[in-house]
């Protein structure tokens, strides 16, 4: 049995999103099961079936030096605002 990851598109033009997985002995069975489980209620306009083995998973992203400025969440605005206010208050005082 092969595990297929199923991605579905809700409306034309929208990105495909991961919907779940199914297991099937070959692509013909996978197609029928996918239609049955992810398409029969008109909830999708298209499906992608991807054998799980075909997916290259990458992980383990190191950030030894803690360079948070590479990330969107590297700028905790609340903290920075607080510091700026304190500086402004100190100057004014």
């Amino acid at each position, binding site marked *: 049995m092969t595990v297929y990851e199923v991605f579905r598109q809700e409306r034309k033009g929208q990105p495909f999103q991961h919907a779940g997985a199914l297991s099937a002995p070959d692509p013909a069975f996978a197609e029928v099961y996918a*239609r*049955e489980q992810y398409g029969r209620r008109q909830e999708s306009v298209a499906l992608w079936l991807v054998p799980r083995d075909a997916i290259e998973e990458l992980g383990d992203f190191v950030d030894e030096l803690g360079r948070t400025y590479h990330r969107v969440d590297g700028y905790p605005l609340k903290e920075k605002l607080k510091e700026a206010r304190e500086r402004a208050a100190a100057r004014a005082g």
Partner: protein
Amino acid sequence: MSELLLELADDELVIGWRDSEWTGIAPLLEEDVAFSSIAQNEIGHARALYELAARDLGTTADQLAFDRSPSDYRCSALVGLRLVPDWARTIARRYLYEQADERRLAALKASDDPEVAGLAAKIDREEAYHRMHAQMWFERLEDEPRFVQALEELRPLVDLRDEHPPELAELWEEMTMVRRSQPAGTTW
């Protein structure tokens, strides 16, 4: 015409019940889902067909579906059989049923009655998925002796409508039990 609609409706109702007997116990989770949804579709078709027949016969869909005696049902002997837990025969029945159903729907789609033709076309669009399911199993099992034997054993039953297997009466008991429990004078 209502005779033909009743044959088809009885077939769809009974095979829907039989297919639903796999819910929760099919050999694969995916088949559990497939059989359950095929069963729902078939019973939906039965309902639409009974409604159409009921108008011609001056009765209601529920009365046609549940208030006749088991021997009055016009369904094929193929669908009455209780096949759980025999998967080979279950798949053989689905395959034979869908083949026969396809021929019958093609004839009804060409009917002069626009309501009948329209309903047949609607049903056929759903049956296309059932045929796809049956066909893929057929291609996978066609050389399996158990499956070949099941096909041979069941094929003669497809057009047999005047005799019912004894378990059809048992199914009818189950199918109508709740309806018959209704206290006199009440309606659903």
